[in-house]
């Protein structure tokens, strides 16, 4: 269970020692007592019999940012895609274990992956606007079946709000009708973030969202995430350990499909328990 990986003495942050401890609720501050939004239990994912995720259990807390770091091939992306059942779109994929969101297993019988993906949004590593206008990109998810129909003015408001949240509004407000493909890479990625936000998912998964971006675009996305965690639970996979250090509340270190260590970001980066974590975050390997 996750407790194994989480250091007990979380002294480096001005937050309760153990985020799971119910006692923190006594302070009356909901943000200070995050509950596990997602509980991953014994997750194993294999492709054509080759195991990519070798049994991972961890908790993801509500309205926090969990950073996942690890060298290439650590199955960070596969883990992320297991949370919204995107792995099963690939051939030869097999998933075992449980992923509980609000206590309900997303791999349980009768769970509709389509409905699940409306609750769990994803931003991919490569900026991937659809070949539509900026406006249509943002409202894509809200035009789908199973989402409440919105009036034109409601859609306009939604587009503005989401683009503002993604720090893109000022750059594109005069050309919402032009193609999303004509934006720069950094703008495209923020458009993708806005598009995910428009569905209003409870959980946002980001798969190395800044891997191809310049520092300014990266800073804008990180700023956006910092605001978004007030309302969303965020999982941020990153190849950039510094980004995890800057942006996440908790950090998990993955290696070869296993979870090596999970703790508050400060403790992972200043006082890692595992030798391999220390080597990785200090740049000695990986």
């Amino acid at each position, binding site marked *: 269970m996750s407790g194994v990986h989480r250091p007990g003495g979380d002294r480096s942050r001005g937050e309760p020692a153990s985020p799971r401890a119910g006692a923190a609720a006594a302070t009356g501050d909901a943000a200070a007592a995050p509950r596990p939004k997602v509980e991953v239990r014994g997750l194993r994912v294999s492709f054509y019999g080759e195991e990519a995720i070798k049994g991972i259990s961890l908790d993801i807390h509500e309205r926090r940012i969990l950073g996942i770091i690890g060298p290439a091939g650590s199955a960070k992306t596969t883990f992320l895609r297991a949370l919204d059942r995107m792995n099963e*779109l690939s051939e030869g994929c097999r998933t075992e274990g449980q992923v509980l969101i609000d206590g309900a297993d997303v791999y349980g019988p009768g769970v509709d992956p389509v409905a699940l993906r409306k609750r769990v949004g994803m931003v*991919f590593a490569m900026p991937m606007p659809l070949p539509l206008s900026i406006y249509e990109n943002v409202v894509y998810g809200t035009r789908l*079946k199973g*989402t409440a129909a919105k009036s034109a003015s409601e859609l306009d408001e939604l587009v503005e709000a989401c683009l503002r949240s993604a720090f893109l509004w000022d750059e594109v407000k005069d050309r919402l009708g032009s193609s999303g493909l*004509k934006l720069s890479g950094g703008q495209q990625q923020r458009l993708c973030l806005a598009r*995910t936000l428009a*569905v209003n998912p409870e959980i946002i998964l980001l798969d190395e969202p800044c891997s191809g971006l310049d520092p300014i675009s990266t800073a804008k996305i990180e700023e956006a995430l910092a605001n978004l965690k007030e309302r969303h639970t965020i999982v941020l996979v990153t190849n950039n350990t510094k980004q995890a250090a800057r942006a996440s509340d908790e950090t998990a270190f993955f290696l070869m499909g296993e979870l090596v260590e999970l703790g508050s970001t400060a403790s992972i980066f200043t006082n890692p328990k595992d030798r391999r974590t220390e080597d990785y975050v200090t740049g000695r390997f990986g």
Partner: protein
Amino acid sequence: MNSHKLSQWAAVAVLAAATALILAVLAFIVFFVLEKGLPQISLGFLLDRPRNMGKEGGIGPAIVGTLLLSLLAIAVALPLGVGTAIYLSEYTRESRLTKAIRFGTDCLAGIPSIIFGLFGYIFFVTTLRLGWSLIAGALTLAIMILPTLIRTSEEAIRAVPRSWREVSLSLGATRWETVRKVVLPNALPGILTGVMLSFGRSIGETAAVIYTAGSSFRLPRGAFDSVRTLAVHFYILAREGLSTEKAYGTAAVLVIAVLAVNATTYALMNRFIRRRSR
């Protein structure tokens, strides 16, 4: 070094010669037909009906018959073809069954059109008692162009980036919504190419329609009327030695029609691609 340059030069020369040869053959055929045929074409020739077995008069009903037959064939085959392509590429995983389906369509594409004509005659004309008619001819043509439509549509659908599908699905779209909103709009130019290729093939088809649509001189008044296509008209005129002049005139109209269809296809495709990439 010298041999390097020589082989390079030789490769360019051979490729250029092959291209030139093909263009020359095409140009020769087109000019030959147009040179003999264009003088025969007049407004009266295009609008009038054939008289005296086609020795006199025009080809009006044949033009109408050709267009109706081809359009009807596309209307029948397009939903089937695109549907099959969507099913194969979006709803099935690569398996022995899909390979068998693909192999089957490829075989179907290689069957000589006279065989389709024979099948159409036996099945649609006699068994289903449709008679020599527009509908029997169109159904036969539809079967004939189906493989082309399936394969070109499938190629076009596969060319749509997988990542766009993933984005759509990750936003909570169903497979069908993804097909409708992302896959099909972006596969449209390719599908259109297949439609135009099929249309061109239908216009010029003789063997498959002569046994199924018949060769009536008259303007069809319904789906169960027999029609004569341009290609059939040309075939009969030339084969029976009725009128070489009228045959060339018909051939010229046919060639112009096919060229026009192809030119329109390219124009539409280019416009579509430019609009998408803007």
